[in-house]
């Protein structure tokens, strides 16, 4: 049985008392994210060609793409930030920011039950000649849920 009066934590506690605390005053003082930290997915609608590869490879099924309606949408709260979509995008429309995704409140659920964190882009249809032929890509409906 060790000596009951010899508490090894006491000097440590006393030293802490006079030294600088290790914590931050969080909402007022925020440590910047490291370079290369994996945060939210950012999307450039201009370069996207709606190939749907990102949606098909996403393990969390967070990305929905509609070729007919020319929309690209992501559920930021479903996204697991693995970065696969960024890797597979041949047009480099997708990138990953270092910022972590925002906190969402229950009150942000929209009147139609839209989920918070739902982000959607829509590109107006250009003239028919602008659409490059993307042969071999299956119809949008069939590609869902890959």
């Amino acid at each position, binding site marked *: 049985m060790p000596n009951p009066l010899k508490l090894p934590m006491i000097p440590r506690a006393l030293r802490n008392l006079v030294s600088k605390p290790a914590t931050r005053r969080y909402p007022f003082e925020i440590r910047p994210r*490291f370079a290369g930290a994996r945060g939210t997915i950012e999307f450039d609608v201009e370069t996207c060609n709606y190939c749907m590869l990102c949606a098909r490879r996403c393990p969390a099924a967070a990305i929905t793409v509609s070729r007919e309606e020319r929309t690209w949408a992501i559920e930021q709260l479903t996204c697991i*930030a693995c970065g696969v979509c960024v890797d597979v995008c041949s047009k480099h429309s997708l990138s990953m920011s270092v910022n972590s995704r925002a906190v969402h409140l229950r009150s942000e659920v929209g009147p139609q039950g839209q989920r918070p964190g739902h982000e959607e882009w829509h590109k107006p249809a250009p003239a028919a000649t602008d659409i490059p032929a993307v042969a071999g890509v299956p119809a949008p409906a069939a590609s869902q849920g890959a």
Partner: protein
Amino acid sequence: MRRTTIPFGPQHPVLPEPLVLDLILEDEKVIDAIPTIGYIHRGLEMMVERVEYTEMGFVVERICGICSFMHGMGYCVSLESIMNVEVPERAGWLRLIWAEISRIQSHLLWLGLGADAFGFENLFMHCWRMREQILDIFEKTTGGRIIHSVNRIGGVKRDISDSELAAILVQLQELGEAFKTTARVFGTDPSIAHRLGGVGVLSMEDARAVDAVGPMARASGIATDTRLIGANFYDRIELEPVTETAGDCLARVVVRLREIDQSIDIVRQAIEKMPKGEGLPLENKPRGNPNGEVFTRLEQPRGEVLYYVKANGTKNLERFRARTPTFANIPAMIKLVKGCDLADVPNIILTIDPCISCTER
């Protein structure tokens, strides 16, 4: 005669995990403990039917928030051996380094939780403070603090520059030195000796009989360590399993304390032995779809993990199974909980380092 029934879990604050136990008490002596699992089943293994094998690794990583790197690694190693993909040497060493840093992180987290369970808040703070710095290393090198997503079938996604590796090693060694004062508290504090010493003693014979794994077995004097089989570059590391003989809760703490030092040393050896330079290959991409089946064993911080993968030549695997170390250690835990005090229950449960979420996937 009437006895007290305590519903211990699934949502008990002393447990980091949804373990379910019915404790039957007299005074505070545990007469019987009735366990059950299945509370948190998430169906991750079933997801192989939907997620293609190339992305399944990211799902597998999410089996656990603490050994996430090792789960991803185990999956990739399994697929690599089915598809006969050779991992580039630097990638293999990087995996080993990350794996050992994971071990340090896991042990620190566990030590903190253990301290919290026996009511030593200050010690908990100290362990977790050091763990934060390890998580910073992960964030710098992999981009994520908990979920890293750097493992790919055939290698790793990111490189760590040689200068940064050297800096990490220095940082780890400094942390290791600083942690010695905290470690001494675990070893010498009389109030901790009162709570852990002689509590939940698992003899070597019992440990063998219930097939304990990892630190649980090593604290009972069994020199078992899956790293000794030498896969994943461990054959190039000098490694002596950390063992203790007392078999009580305190021994299990001490094993993990010593393994932190051991892991720092393994990281040092790896950095010395790995090929240096910029732009070395990190990934050999597999071709086609896998076909065949394989078992993979790894030594996670909690003990031996077992993966079974069966592929049938399609994009989706036919079967994926993971047997986590917690599952292997639950019989030992139940054995120890019977006959102990209620106040010992959290300590005994925690010293197997339970991850029920991994167990129930």
